[in-house]
């Protein structure tokens, strides 16, 4: 197939050969008319064919509408309607065109941002014609590399050393396989000769198909570090690709590699959106910023993530964890969808008991972002399958007469090579490839996780195959292709009919099928927007058909189609209305229900089909609604009515969804549930009905395997409830069924002991683990060291650390060094603590933000301003948008070390970056102002945020209230309090008592009876009155020389007990009356 396409590609290219790069079609985008005019003229002078626009949105529209009309895009960075980087990302993802960024701003940070977002070049204004004369090379490079990569991929997959080091494997990126994409690299041979005039030796360019293929360069973390280091060393002015490459000194690395691989990676980089503040608990983050505590918080989160059958790593989390980030990140639609689909394929099989291996220990979290965590890991995995199973695939396909359809499909979307690749992945992932299990050998926990995932996946697929006749199976595949070919109508018939027997004969679980649906849909979503509509329609039609099947044939409803059966119009109409809900979801942190998270994740997958038309902001909300809508298709109108009121609380919504699903599962007890399904179910039950019901369910489980699988969620329930006794009994019970061999249950119970301050017991758990040869992971060691510090002193901590260093199973990472730093700090050894943090810095991953934020807070706790600033600056090199939570952490830390100026500056950059005006970020600054007594400044900031359209939350009002009380502006304080109280519908805020009393005291001193009266009346409404407040009220009357009325009655009415002093006050007030 490849050979044929190549030859085809040569013919038209040959005709254009003489002219190129004359007539190269360039789209120039700049909002500055002067620059644009000059640029246009310069480009024309280079004999390119130039189209200009001063709006990024228009540029995007043009590009989308005329996919093949341009060869290259040059875009300004700063544009009012759309950030140039966003355009860059969208273009990079949707059409794979080379994009050159253009800016007057040559700061390292900005240039790096351009590079990390996938710009093939970054030109500084004013642009010189010499630079522009050369830009055609990017077009050629692009075409080359897409082609070359496929070969190399294949080569690498075959030649990958079985024990590649983890970083290496994780950084591994697989890219498009253009031969499949049907986008042959035209002009390839022709331009070879023109290629070299840049003076840069591009090892990848001159490739003879017959020559041995070179292994692909893997953009590992190591490489990235080298790259960033090289750029920093050179300074941005001199950091030309050639010199960077020289400095990096990596064989076979070309600049093409760098940018493209990095873009690929970028898209998948896990944005560890965990709100550090949240992860560290509600306590004062400074005092308790123990590495361990944070870790614990995070780990707790992790395990819940694991429970929800999501892998705990960043990307998979991110949709739930911080949907806002997902929504606003500017991650273009198709990319995020890819992520989604990845997460589902990945997460699904992890229902297996093995999944807990994916709940990675502390240290690896940093690394997590890099590989497995990302959809790249996923991509890689699937790619592997593709390569290994190519033959099988084709036989299966041709065996079903599908091969034509398949290639046709791929060609039909040939204009965007990225897409078909994903499509291929998606499709092929479903075709079981057993060999892939065996081939990957395990070298680190990450890999282990990956392997488990794949094996799990395979398991489930195999089970499908075993029950479904092959025709049914491939018919499922056909669904997807059908949509691509836009021949849904005729294929649909065949599909449905062949699906029906498959469904009735298989006994797949609900969860399993839904996920299957989600993932397959996710893959399909990678369609360009123009095909999207068709696909949606197709989905809808299919859903209808499906329903019909269910009702008439009484076969099992296949929830797979639940997910896909939403007509786009329906979605679109829901999106706006439920945006509010997604907002709330944003705010709910990791303690949100597991099931909820999971549901949303799934729903999001299918919901995100609308993204190209809607905006990513609505991703989650559409997901939310998608699900209930479909659930209501399951003839459960109750839920629908519940859902139709958009004001219902999100948790409630979630719970009702879960309940419906549970009851639905109950009513179909002809399902045979697998152990992993039991586990999921137990999770759901625990979430919705509480621990006791979960226990009940657990007791009823019959098989040991099911019990074993379901044990972790139950244990987690106990730990969350801090129920030591039950947890201990349960652990003992577990031993009877054979102890779980992974450290996670043990970590869980150790966390419980830490939470209940029983540090000695931690030590005994560690002893038990050692005795039973249970491997300890990083978290185990961290907990252990903390316990040592609590119980026996530094020497024992150090011996534990030594043991950890000698343990080949764990890698000592930043989390451990942070733990150590906190221990040293606790022992008053600041210099050692700082040294540990320095070491921790060296262990940071360049893809996860968590570590940076974490170490930063540690520095803040040690009052090391330079450390805080250094970490914050360094964290900016992590690709991707900086989430608001990270800005908040940085601001909090900067304020903590007394650098409010810099905190303000950070706030400014957040404002410039973000589209949403998240009041939580400004609250940080607001609090700092108030604590410093700068109420005017605080007010200005508050007004500024209001102007920007931010919605103050109760915390905002509380801070302001405090500030006004401090500055004796009681009217304003009362107003702020009222505003805060008016938000009570959404939260359980109570104004701090001392502030209330301070206000009352003030009114008392001033003798402002009216104010005091009004104040008390407000408080009465919210049941906030108290004896001291009434005393102040009486005092106000006394001071104002006015006779109070009804006060004893009011006090009685509020059911407040009087005391002696109060009695005397009343008498005193009355005395005045008598005299």
């Amino acid at each position: 197939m490849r050979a044929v396409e190549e030859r085809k590609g040569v013919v038209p290219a040959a005709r254009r050969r003489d002219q190129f790069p004359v007539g190269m079609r360039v789209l120039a985008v700049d909002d500055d008319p002067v620059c644009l005019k000059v640029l246009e003229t310069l480009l024309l002078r280079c004999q390119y064919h130039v189209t200009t626009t001063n709006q990024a949105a228009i540029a995007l529209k043009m590009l989308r509408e005329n996919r093949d009309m341009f060869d290259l895009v040059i875009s300004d960075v700063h544009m009012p309607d759309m950030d140039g980087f966003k355009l860059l990302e969208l273009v990079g993802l949707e059409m794979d065109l080379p994009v050159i960024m253009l800016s007057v701003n040559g700061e390292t940070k900005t240039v790096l941002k351009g590079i990390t977002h996938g710009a093939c070049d970054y030109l500084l204004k004013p642009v010189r014609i010499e630079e522009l004369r050369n830009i055609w090379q990017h077009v050629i490079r692009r075409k080359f590399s897409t082609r070359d990569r496929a070969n190399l991929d294949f080569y690498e997959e075959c030649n990958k050393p079985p024990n590649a080091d983890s970083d290496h494997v994780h950084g591994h990126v697989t890219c498009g396989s253009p031969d499949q994409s049907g986008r042959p690299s035209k002009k390839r041979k022709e331009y070879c000769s023109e290629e070299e005039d840049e003076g840069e030796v591009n090892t990848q360019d001159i490739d003879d198909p017959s020559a041995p293929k070179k292994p692909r360069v893997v953009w590992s973390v190591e490489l990235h570090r080298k790259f960033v280091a090289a750029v920093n060393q050179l300074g941005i002015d001199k950091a030309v690709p050639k010199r960077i490459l020289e400095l990096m000194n990596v064989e076979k690395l070309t600049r093409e590699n760098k940018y493209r691989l990095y873009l690929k990676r970028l898209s998948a980089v896990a944005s560890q959106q965990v709100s550090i503040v949240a992860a560290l608990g509600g306590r004062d983050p400074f005092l308790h910023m123990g590495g361990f505590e944070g870790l614990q918080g995070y780990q707790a989160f992790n395990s819940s993530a694991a429970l929800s059958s999501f892998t705990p790593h960043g990307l998979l989390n991110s949709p739930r964890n911080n949907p806002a980030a997902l929504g606003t990140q500017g991650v273009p639609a198709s990319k995020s969808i890819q992520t989604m689909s990845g997460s589902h394929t990945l997460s699904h099989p992890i229902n297996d008991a093995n999944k807990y291996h994916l709940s990675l220990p502390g240290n690896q979290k940093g690394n997590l972002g890099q590989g497995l965590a990302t959809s790249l890991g996923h991509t890689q995995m699937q790619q592997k399958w593709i390569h290994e199973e190519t033959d099988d695939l084709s036989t299966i396909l041709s065996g079903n007469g599908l091969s034509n359809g398949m290639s046709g499909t791929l060609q039909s979307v040939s204009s965007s090579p990225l897409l078909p690749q994903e499509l291929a992945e998606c499709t092929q992932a479903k075709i079981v490839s057993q060999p892939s299990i065996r081939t990957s050998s395990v070298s680190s926990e990450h890999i282990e996780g990956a392997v488990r995932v794949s094996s799990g996946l395979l398991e489930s697929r195999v089970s499908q195959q075993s029950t479904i006749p092959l025709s049914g199976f491939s018919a499922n595949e056909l669904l997807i292709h059908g949509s691509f070919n836009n021949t849904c109508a005729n294929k649909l018939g065949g599909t449905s009919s062949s699906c029906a027997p498959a469904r009735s004969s298989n006994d797949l679980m609900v969860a399993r099928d839904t996920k299957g649906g989600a993932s397959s849909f996710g893959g399909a979503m990678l369609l360009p927007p123009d095909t999207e509509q068709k696909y949606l329609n197709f989905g809808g039609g299919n859903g209808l058909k499906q329903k019909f099947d269910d009702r008439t044939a009484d076969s099992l409803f296949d929830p797979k189609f639940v997910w896909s059966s939403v007509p786009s119009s329906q979605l679109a109409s829901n999106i706006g209305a439920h945006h509010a809900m997604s907002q709330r979801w944003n705010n709910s942190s990791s303690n949100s229900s597991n099931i909820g998270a999971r549901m949303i994740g799934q729903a999001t997958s299918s919901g995100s089909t609308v993204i190209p038309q809607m905006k990513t902001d609505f991703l989650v909300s559409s997901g939310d609604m998608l699900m209930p809508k479909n659930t209501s298709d399951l003839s459960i109108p109750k839920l629908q009515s519940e859902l139709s009121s958009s004001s219902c609380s999100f948790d409630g919504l979630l719970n009702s969804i879960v309940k419906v699903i549970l009851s639905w599962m109950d009513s179909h007890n002809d399902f045979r549930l697998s152990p992993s399904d039991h586990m999921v179910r137990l999770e759901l039950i625990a979430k919705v009905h509480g621990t006791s019901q979960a226990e009940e369910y657990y007791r009823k489980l019959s098989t040991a395997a099911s019990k074993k699988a379901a044990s972790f969620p139950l244990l987690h329930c106990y730990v969350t409830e801090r129920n030591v006794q039950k947890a201990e009994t349960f652990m003992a019970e577990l031993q009877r069924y054979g102890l779980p061999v992974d450290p996670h249950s043990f970590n869980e119970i150790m966390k419980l002991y830490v939470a209940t301050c029983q540090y000695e017991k931690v030590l005994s758990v560690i002893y038990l683990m050692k005795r039973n040869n249970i491997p300890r992971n990083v978290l185990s060691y961290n907990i252990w060291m903390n316990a040592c510090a609590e119980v026996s002193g530094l020497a024992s901590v150090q011996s534990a650390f030594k043991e950890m260093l000698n343990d080949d199973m764990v890698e000592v990472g930043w989390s451990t060094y942070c733990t150590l730093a906190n221990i040293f700090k606790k022992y008053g050894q600041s210099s050692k603590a700082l040294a540990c943090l320095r070491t921790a810095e060296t262990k940071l991953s360049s893809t996860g933000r968590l570590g940076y934020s974490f170490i930063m807070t540690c520095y803040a706790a040690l009052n090391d301003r330079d450390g805080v600033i250094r970490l914050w600056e360094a964290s900016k090199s992590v690709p991707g948008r900086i989430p608001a939570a990270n800005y908040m952490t940085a601001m909090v830390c900067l304020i903590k070390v007394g650098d409010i100026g810099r905190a303000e500056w950070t706030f400014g950059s957040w404002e410039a970056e973000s589209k949403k005006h998240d009041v939580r970020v400004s609250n940080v600054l607001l609090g700092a102002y108030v604590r410093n007594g700068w109420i005017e400044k605080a007010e200005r900031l508050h007004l500024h945020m209001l102007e920007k359209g931010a919605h103050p939350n109760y915390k905002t009002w509380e801070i302001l209230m405090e500030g006004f009380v401090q500055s004796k502006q009681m009217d304003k304080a009362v107003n702020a309090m009222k505003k805060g109280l008016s938000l009570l519908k959404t939260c359980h805020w109570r104004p701090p008592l001392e502030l209330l009393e301070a206000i009352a005291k003030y009114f008392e001193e001033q003798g402002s009876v009216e104010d005091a009266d009004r104040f008390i009346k407000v408080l009465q409404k919210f049941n906030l009155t108290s004896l001291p407040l009434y005393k102040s009220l009486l005092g106000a009357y006394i001071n104002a020389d006015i006779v109070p009325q009804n006060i004893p009655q009011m006090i009685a009415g509020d059911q407040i007990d009087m005391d002696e002093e109060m009695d005397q006050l009343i008498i005193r007030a009355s005395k005045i009356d008598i005299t």
Partner: protein
Amino acid sequence: MSLERIVSRVTSNQSRKLAEGHKAIANAIGYLDEQFCQVEDLQDEASPNFVEEVVTLFFKDSGRLMSNIEQALDKYPRDFNRWDAYMQQLKGSCSSIGASRMKNECMSFRDSCGQGNVEGCMRSFQKVKREHAILRQKLESYFQLLRQAGPAGAATRPVM
């Protein structure tokens, strides 16, 4: 802008007006840089008034940008990010036509933004405005001179 360059430009077809030419040269030096030459290079038969068009566009657009900045300075006190963003636009325009002195003032404005120095920003902005006015004046007289030299003036200058 190199002296030699300006001499060749201004004097090529108008030795009669040598005295005025020198004046224009002396005035333009330091206010423009090589980018302006590049812009001039782009002028050809196809667009004989290209330089003047671009310069006119520049003054129109930079006027708008400057009034934006003026408003932002007034309306958003200490909003350095906003100020900086606006000034960056202006700097982009300046660099595109090679208005070097104006660009330098833009840069010092942005430096002040980075330091959170309101005074410095205000001062630099005043300077930007002044440079803008001076440049406008200089370029106007320059174009006037060129027009007097006739349309051939630009087209037939020696290649450098």
